[in-house]
């Protein structure tokens, strides 16, 4: 049963005592977790538990943070988000962040390449064929599912191998959720490392290696996916479902 714990992973991303603030509000109170190279790890928890803030803190997108965030062994707590991105981390935000003053192609080409080895445009279109037919459309004129594909597709081009995805399935039709799920599975197979914020743990269970459970700005538990069934009662309690 300890297989997932002892697997030959190396810690790619790790936080220690991560605190974060929005203005006067203290949101994160010492978050500890780690993600190994090639893993898909989720952050589960109720609304307001601090999942999105954790992603934003890793990316340097909060006003104030303290503690430690290490990527490939290098400390990132003092870096601005543009420098963090250049280390090979890319974010797909919860609200998707499609730009309305840019057309689909401009949205897709916006994030600069930060490393070699990103997907080519042809590969992105192969993953998300809908995008290719809508290149001249205004970004925000796409359906919710297409916007999500665009938000994921554009960061795959950059060469970043560590992806932070914030609720990529939120509000989408089941068929689209399946497509996103297949995409994440394929990215994992190709060696991408993914940190995923999810409300829908049934979806998360189909693609993740491990789950961290957050409550009140802290990580309170870690459940390997293989032990999810055995911990279902605990999880129901955490998530209140």
């Amino acid at each position, binding site marked *: 049963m300890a297989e997932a714990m002892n697997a030959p992973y190396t810690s790619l991303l790790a936080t220690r005592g991560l605190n974060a603030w929005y203005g006067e509000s203290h949101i994160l109170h010492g978050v500890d977790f780690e993600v190994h190279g090639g893993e898909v790890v989720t952050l589960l928890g109720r609304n307001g538990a601090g999942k999105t803030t954790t992603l934003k803190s890793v*990316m*340097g*997108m909060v006003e104030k943070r303290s503690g430690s965030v290490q990527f490939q062994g290098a400390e990132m707590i003092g870096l*601005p*988000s*543009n420098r*963090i*991105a*250049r280390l090979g981390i*890319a*974010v797909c*935000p919860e609200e998707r*962040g499609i*730009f*309305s*003053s*840019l057309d689909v192609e*401009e949205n897709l*080409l*916006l*994030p*600069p390449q*930060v490393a070699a080895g990103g997907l080519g445009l042809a590969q992105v279109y192969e993953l998300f064929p809908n995008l290719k037919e809508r290149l001249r459309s205004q970004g925000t004129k796409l359906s919710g599912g297409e916007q999500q594909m665009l938000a994921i597709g554009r*960061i795959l081009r*950059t060469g970043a191998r560590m992806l932070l995805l914030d609720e990529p399935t939120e509000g989408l039709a089941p068929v689209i959720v399946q497509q996103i799920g297949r995409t994440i599975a394929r990215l994992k197979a190709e060696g991408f490392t993914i940190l995923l914020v999810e409300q829908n743990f049934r979806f998360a269970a189909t693609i993740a290696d491990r789950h961290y459970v957050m409550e009140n700005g802290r990580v309170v538990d870690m459940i390997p996916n293989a032990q999810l069934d055995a911990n279902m009662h605990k999880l129901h309690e955490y998530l209140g479902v």
Partner: protein
Amino acid sequence: MRAPFRTTAMDSIFGVPVQALFGQLLIGLINGSFYALLSLGLAVIFGLLNIINFTHGAQYMMGAFVAYLLASKAGLGYWWSLALVPLVVGFTGVVIERLMLSKLYRLDHLYGLLLTFGLALIIQGLFRNEYGTSGLPYAMPAELAGGRNLGFMFLPNYRAWVIVASLGVCIGTWFVIEKTKLGSYLRAATENPALVQAFGINVPRMITLTYGFGVALAAFAGVMAAPIYQVSPQMGADLIIVVFAVVVIGGMGSIMGSIVTGFALGLIEGLTKVFYPEASNTVIFIIMAIVLMFKPAGLFGSQK
């Protein structure tokens, strides 16, 4: 034998002599060129910085003064000034952004407005102290002296150049912002700077350079204005009130809106001088009031 009356179609339109009509339209276009250049700079700055740059008029005046100083102290002529002055004055903008404006982005817009308004008063005061209030002359470039007779009117070469150069700069700026990769960064950062920065783009530097560019546009307009209007510390303050009305009519932050509205309002002002001179100083503000009643975000603006 008496000559027949020949004052109909060819010589007058609606009872106004053709010469006067086109003369006023030309003046309107010239004014419109400056409205467009200045409101374009304001729009670029407002779009990304969310700051209403009240220093804009003073920076336009600085453009004219630096051109005057380059000519009188260094012997550098108009064309040198056209190239150098936007760089010099734009650099002062970069310094202002780095040292002062950048501290205000987290605060209410009002603070940016107060700071830039205060800076305008200080800059104008310094120049008034040094050079007095009477205007200083600036020579027209020899290449553009004289003019040509178009048959229906006389067109001074320099005024034609102002219109062409201003149109060129406006369209070039529009092209860069709307049609290039650099422009897509700018548009995206206007919408969501935090996300654009998280993609790896140095947004604070982009903001600094954008402010510098907007200021450079004002300085460029100042150099172009120097041979037409007199170079005086007050020249920007007089103009900027009208330019703010242009910006409000066009829509805050809209690039195309500021260009089209700038030229159009110059023309409308010119026409008003022909047909109802009493209203020529107020027509722009009347239009502003009407536009605000029906489209509060301006003709080209979108509600933010």
